[in-house]
């Protein structure tokens, strides 16, 4: 019984860690490609923040598992079907609107999720969330600010942002589609309930979109799912191939 619960918690920790890991990897690719020097710095800063959070989640997951897998083994030696990140985060960087809309959807639910996790019954999870929320608050402020600038900017930036908003919408809600793992975490007093989380997300997104003169997609629209269970889009394999190459080629190296 106890073992099973830990297995569930392990899975839940992987989900948190993998979300941050995959998005961090995606943002890292933009290093030196930002539209302005300051934006470049900001993107890489966010990537670093997320990588720091990844390390905390995966380290804890490895300890809980007790099979000798540390953060590196978990990050570099799992294949796509073992990754637990939401599909939203493995979507390509695209143009700057695509990148920022993906970021904005993530930051919004990430913020409210971390806020909920600061009250987790598991002290370690609460501590990681507490540490993360400072960074995530800033991420959310920044991406919301940019969505408003791009949506309420030129006709071209408006069109590109609206296109990104519509295209990525079906990946925005996976996090609220609770499965047995999520439900068990709610029952243990770790995770916040899906409905409250979803309501907070919708409220913030519609507020920002209104200010950005963007049309809010249908909140009841059908949402893609599978990432949390290890069923991913075709993008993840390529991301991992690049990310894990060195570890796969030279296993067990010290660096």
């Amino acid at each position: 019984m106890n073992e099973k619960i830990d297995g569930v918690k392990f899975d839940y920790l992987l989900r948190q860690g993998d979300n941050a890991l995959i998005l961090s990897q995606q943002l890292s690719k933009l290093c030196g490609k930002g539209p302005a020097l300051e934006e470049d710095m900001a993107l890489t800063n966010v990537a670093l923040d997320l990588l720091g959070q990844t390390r905390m989640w995966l380290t804890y997951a490895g300890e809980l598992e007790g099979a000798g897998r540390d953060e590196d083994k978990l990050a570099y030696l799992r294949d796509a079907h073992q990754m637990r990140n939401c599909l939203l985060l493995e979507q390509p960087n695209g143009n700057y609107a695509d990148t920022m809309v993906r970021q904005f959807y993530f930051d919004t639910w990430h913020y409210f999720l971390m806020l909920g996790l600061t009250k987790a019954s598991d002290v370690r999870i609460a501590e990681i969330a507490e540490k993360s929320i400072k960074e995530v608050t800033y991420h959310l402020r920044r991406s919301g600010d940019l969505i408003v600038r791009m949506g309420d900017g030129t006709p071209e930036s408006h069109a590109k942002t609206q296109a990104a908003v519509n295209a990525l919408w079906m990946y925005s809600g996976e996090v609220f589609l609770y499965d047995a793992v999520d439900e068990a975490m709610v029952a243990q007093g770790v995770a916040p309930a899906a409905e409250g989380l979803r309501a907070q997300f919708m409220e913030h997104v519609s507020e920002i979109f209104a200010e950005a003169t963007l049309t809010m997609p249908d909140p009841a629209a059908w949402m893609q799912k599978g990432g949390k269970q290890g069923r991913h889009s075709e993008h993840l394999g390529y991301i991992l191939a690049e990310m894990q190459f060195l570890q796969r080629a030279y296993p067990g190296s010290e660096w």
Partner: protein
Amino acid sequence: MSKEWPLWEVFIRSQHGLAHKHVGSLHASDAEMAVNNARDVYTRRNEGVSIWVVRAADIVASSPGDKTALFEPSNNKVYRHPTFFPMPEEVKNL
């Protein structure tokens, strides 16, 4: 970019600092973005700092040509400098 993104000068008071110091400049389209960017570029988001951003165009600087008129007179009025006070031994590093 220089047309749409004016130059801003950034002043930062560090955690235990008493005054804002000029740390550099950056480009941003408005003040809010300048503050955000200053956090990313100059503070690495150190907690407990205060940031001022000022549009570079709003700063008036003394011109190098005025140097003599502005600063020279005080140099040859030695009585204005507090250098004639004997200091007690106990007072170090003043």
